């Protein structure tokens, strides 16, 4: 009665939606706190994880993509594509575990669990970010290959600019536009996929909350988390479009 579960489904849904828009998701079945309190506690951790993962993915993908494009069809290119193909084939939960075995236990470089310091985030960030790296790298490579054949690159070389300047100042600036947009979208996927990683590394983030709540049938929390992440997805897709437009000066003036 208290939860209004006796009223028809449709009414319940719209009531929920109305409250949700005011950020009132009700109370958790399991905890005493409101859902918003729980989410507020966990969201920063997941966001931190997501940001680090994206940073790592981009930090690897862009140089690799540029190198693959510049040394097309050489071993550099083939190696990059190999890394990308393998990266997309490994299941993330397994890779997460493998990282623990190798780095935490085998080499003892990094801690295993918890979220005390930034070091706790390194392995999870790698485990979450590696899956996004291949598509970002391929897009960078394709963009660079496309751009390097342009007339303005030929002009830049004809001006006597150093090869580094031609590649990084002129070529990359134009090739990177779709990559930035894709990165925004990938961040959304990472937020959604954080469930597995947080569970493996025992990080008290949003994904872990969702997972535990699913196990405990704590529906208000589950609904709230799914909605929040879906909203992030949509918001990030929008951000991607905005970035696309903002980075291309042809769109800016006029």
């Amino acid at each position, binding site marked *: 009665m208290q939860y209004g579960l006796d009223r028809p489904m449709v009414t319940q849904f719209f009531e929920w939606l109305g409250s949700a828009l005011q950020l009132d998701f009700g109370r958790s079945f399991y905890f005493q706190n409101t859902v918003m309190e729980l989410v507020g506690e966990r969201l920063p951790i997941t966001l931190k994880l997501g940001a680090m993962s994206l940073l790592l993915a981009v930090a690897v993908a862009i140089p690799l993509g540029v190198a693959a494009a510049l040394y097309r069809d050489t071993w550099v290119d083939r190696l990059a594509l190999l890394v990308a193909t393998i990266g997309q084939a490994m299941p993330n939960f397994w890779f997460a575990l493998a990282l623990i075995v190798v780095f935490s236990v085998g080499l003892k470089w990094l801690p295993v669990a918890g979220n005390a310091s930034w070091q706790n985030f390194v392995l999870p960030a790698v485990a979450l970010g590696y899956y996004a790296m291949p598509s970002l790298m391929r897009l960078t490579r394709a963009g660079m290959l496309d751009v390097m054949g342009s007339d303005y690159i030929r002009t830049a070389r004809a001006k006597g600019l150093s090869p580094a300047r031609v590649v990084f100042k002129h070529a990359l600036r134009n090739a990177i536009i779709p990559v930035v947009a894709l990165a925004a979208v990938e961040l959304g996927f990472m937020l959604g996929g954080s469930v597995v990683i947080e569970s493996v590394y025992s990080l008290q983030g949003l994904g872990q909350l969702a997972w535990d709540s699913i196990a405990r049938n704590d529906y208000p929390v589950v609904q709230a988390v799914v909605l929040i992440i879906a909203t992030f997805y949509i918001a990030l897709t929008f951000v991607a479009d905005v970035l696309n437009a903002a980075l291309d000066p042809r769109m800016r*003036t006029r």
Partner: protein
Amino acid sequence: MSILLDVKNLRVDLPTERGMLHTVRGIDFQVRRGEMLCLVGESGCGKSMTSLALMGLLPARARRSADRLQFDGIDLQAQDERGMSRLRGARMSMIFQEPMTSLNPSYTLGDQLCEALRAHRKVTAAEARERALYLLERAGVPQAADRLRQYPHQLSGGLRQRVMIAMALMCGPDLIIADEPTTALDVTIQAQILRLIRELQQEFGTAVVFITHDLGVVARIADRVAVMYAGEVVETAPVDQLFDQPSHPYTQGLLRCIPVRGKTLPGSRLQAIPGVVPSLVGEVQGCAFANRCSQVRPACSVAPPFAEVAPGHAVRCVTAAHPATLAEVA
């Protein structure tokens, strides 16, 4: 006037699926300081490849060789990429055909102009900007100060080409290679740009290799002309001599195609040159023009050497070199 650019037996080969394409097959020419040399020929004759070969901007798979390729005494073949980068933009610049795509859309014109100078000289941003402004004004760009802050897409084709010309002059080079800079422009703008190039060339004393397929352009601005056909230079001469006394049958054929005011009678036919250019994949036997030449002789089955027929006037033709059997020019 001393010789600035000395090219002897330049060859450019491009490996293709069908075999090795000999785009440039041993050309000789020279450019003196402050001189305007027009390199004229039809599409596919190798003139663009020549320009890229000089600048060291050939595609990676192309192969270049020459007996001599000297710029102001510097052996261009001995330069590695870094050496060429030092020369490019600073001592030899290039202007391309397509102003619409030759500028980076993501940077302002000012940025692109100034970087052309600052890549080679230690100048402050303000000094570079000053020079850019000066050259833009000399190039006839109105509201030059505003233009520096604008992006390429905000300018018309003609204006962009003026910017390209200014950019080529930023470091005060000794040589500018202009690859059909007016071909992609409106006819009305073409004349303006041509005049501009000629004026700037004479004012700054820059030598120019002007590549074109239009004999009208040649007549208007050239000091000397080199006619290219099928990867070879078939005739070089001072511009007046070329039009008055064309020696190579191809040059003669070209001139016959153009109506000349005062000479061509109304109602008379313009004569096109029959036949097609031979394929340059694989070796060409003998003279490349032989299959289309009205003055062909058995001796033409051997590739004719480049020989002087008058001071400063050289021809690659057996018939022209031995005028005893020269046919009447129409």
